């Protein structure tokens, strides 16, 4: 198969299939390291503190939070939108990049999908606890009841959100697990202890990798990717409808859906980078998550970051051009009112800093990328805070104007979800292969450094492709 000379190898170190198995399954089989134990203890404790705070909230009510009559949505909904946004990268990488036939996807899709699932779990917590009476949460589902029956309002974006997020969670989980089955079978077949063999036997569902199984696997992956692509776009579109269909100045804008989707991908890629750069270092996977992968992700960050930047400026322009004084006031107040610091924090982190990635050297610097990935996630948190709190705190009547500061309970619930997310990710990274082994193997012949790039030494590949017939079997895209 022809590979353009500008394509960089995506697998370094002249790997064979056996070595790839060893490198990627090895960390699963090894005893947990001290660093891992310490990290999981710390994040686990943080999660426990968060859950205690959630318990207090459920016991005493959301009066424990800093909300008031004017500002009824604040950190909770900010955190919800932030986590949902982070949860967009996994499906983007595994679905949209599958359809675009991007091979670098294979190195990072497994972790990105896991991250998606854990992020959506954290996101889902916030609307639930925000309800106040969480034990009545089942009221949001349409079921025959004795109250009429009164059904939920199908015309409301909040109900659309319930369907969007539960569908997104389910489909992401299926996509992730279907891909995981063959790799868990690899762990099963290498298992040396009876316990491990038994556990991985259960979780690998009896996979043996026959030709028909793989054929169905590929068919399912492609259709799930096709379904997930509009799904991932719909989820954040619907989240943005929660705001855009209201009449609050600063929320009531048609630009919200594309602006939210771009922001979600932007923050999701930043979180993937944060996690992958750590995983790559700890598990010594530098040969599978190469600088080429990091650079590709940074390019997506420039694109989505620029879209977000244009959206911010468009909002300002529209406020001025509309000649609507309420809209104009909302934006003047955002940048110069009591919450000016959050607006300028957002502008610096999201608009100015990703533009530094136009410099190739910075795009390919691991340390700088890690730093930027954290900056972007802070910036995207500020974005949601700016949209939610600054639009609400100046109510329609001056006597209702207010200011919001979070309480300790809210701060620890937020930190607790970060702990919960990290704990889940650490456990996942220990018990399952963090790289989609079977998929990475399938690109070895077209992206391994012994076949393409400056260091290529295997000439036989080109000879074989020149034979008619053989070419036809290989020309099928990955």
């Amino acid at each position: 198969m022809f590979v353009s000379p500008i394509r960089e190898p995506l697998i370094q170190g002249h790997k064979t299939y056996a070595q790839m198995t060893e490198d990627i399954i090895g960390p699963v089989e090894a005893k947990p390291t001290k660093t891992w134990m310490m990290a999981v203890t710390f994040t686990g404790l943080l999660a426990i503190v968060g859950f205690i705070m959630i318990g207090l909230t459920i016991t005493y009510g959301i009066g424990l939070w800093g909300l008031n009559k004017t500002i009824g949505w604040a950190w909770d909904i900010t955190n919800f939108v932030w986590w949902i946004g982070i949860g967009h990268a996994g499906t983007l990488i595994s679905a949209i990049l599958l359809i675009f036939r991007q091979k670098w996807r294979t190195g990072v899709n497994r972790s990105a999908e896991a991250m998606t699932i854990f992020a959506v779990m954290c996101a889902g917590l916030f609307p639930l606890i925000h309800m106040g009476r969480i034990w009545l949460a089942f009221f949001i589902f349409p079921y025959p009841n004795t109250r009429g029956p009164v059904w939920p309002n199908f015309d409301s974006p909040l109900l659309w959100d319930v369907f969007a997020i539960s569908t997104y969670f389910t489909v992401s989980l299926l996509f992730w697990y279907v891909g995981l089955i063959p790799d868990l079978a690899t762990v099963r077949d290498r298992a040396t202890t009876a316990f491990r063999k038994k556990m991985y036997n259960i979780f690998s569902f009896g996979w043996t990798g026959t030709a028909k199984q793989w054929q169905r696997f590929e068919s399912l992956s492609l259709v799930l990717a096709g379904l997930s692509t509009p799904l991932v776009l719909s989820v954040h579109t619907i989240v943005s409808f929660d705001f855009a269909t209201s009449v609050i100045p600063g929320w009531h804008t048609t630009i919200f859906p594309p602006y939210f989707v771009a922001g979600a991908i932007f923050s999701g890629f930043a979180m993937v980078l944060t996690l992958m750069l750590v995983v790559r270092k700890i598990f010594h996977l530098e040969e599978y998550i190469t600088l080429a992968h990091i650079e590709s992700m940074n390019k997506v960050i420039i694109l989505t970051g620029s879209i977000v930047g244009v959206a911010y400026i468009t909002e300002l322009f529209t406020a001025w051009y509309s000649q609507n004084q309420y809209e104009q006031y909302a934006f003047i107040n955002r940048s110069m009112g009591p919450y000016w610091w959050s607006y300028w924090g957002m502008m610096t982190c999201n608009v100015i800093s990703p533009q530094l990635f136009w410099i190739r050297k910075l795009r390919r610097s691991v340390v700088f990328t890690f730093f930027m990935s954290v900056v972007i996630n802070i910036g995207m948190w500020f974005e949601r805070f700016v949209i939610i709190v600054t639009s609400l705190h100046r109510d329609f009547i001056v006597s209702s104007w207010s200011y919001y500061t979070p309480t300790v309970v809210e701060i620890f619930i937020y930190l607790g979800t970060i702990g919960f997310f990290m704990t889940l990710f650490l456990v996942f990274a220990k018990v399952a292969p963090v790289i989609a082994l079977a998929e990475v193997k399938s690109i070895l012949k077209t992206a391994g450094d012994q076949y393409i790039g400056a260091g290529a030494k295997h000439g036989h590949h080109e000879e074989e492709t020149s034979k008619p017939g053989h070419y036809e079997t290989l020309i099928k895209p990955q």
Partner: protein
Amino acid sequence: MSAKKILYGLFDDEEILLKAVKGVRAEGVRISDVHTPFPVHGLDEAMGLRMTKLHSAGFIFGATGTLTALAFITWISTVNYPINYGGKPYFSLPAWIPITFELTVLFSAVGMTLTYLYLNRLAPGIEPRVLDNRLTSHMFAMTFELEEDTPSEKREEIRKMLEAQGAVEVHEKDFDQ
């Protein structure tokens, strides 16, 4: 079925395997199955496998989702308990598009995945028939099911053919069922 005997050749590269699959089929010998550690492109065509109909199942499940959502919401909002929300019509189709879309995707994905698991005989607790532990790592196997009365000359013939096609090892294995 009682005991099943499987003769299989192991290959260490998918390109050799692909050629071997074509070579063996050209000689008129029926291959029972091929095991690979990752999806090998062109293998299903080389083996003469039919294209899977899984995606058709996905479409049917998806269409079921669309109809379920539309029918259910229409019945609730226009027949069972109509409520006037802000003066909008009871039958307000545009507002129902998001949920209809989500249920289409949900039904299609869940239904298709369950069909996939059923067709591939995958479920927690199923005991796999593992021919060789390396088949999920770096080896590729071409298998032939043998009958009780398969003559030993026939076995020898398959063995020779596998070796000629580039198999690095040839083995036989019995399974209980």
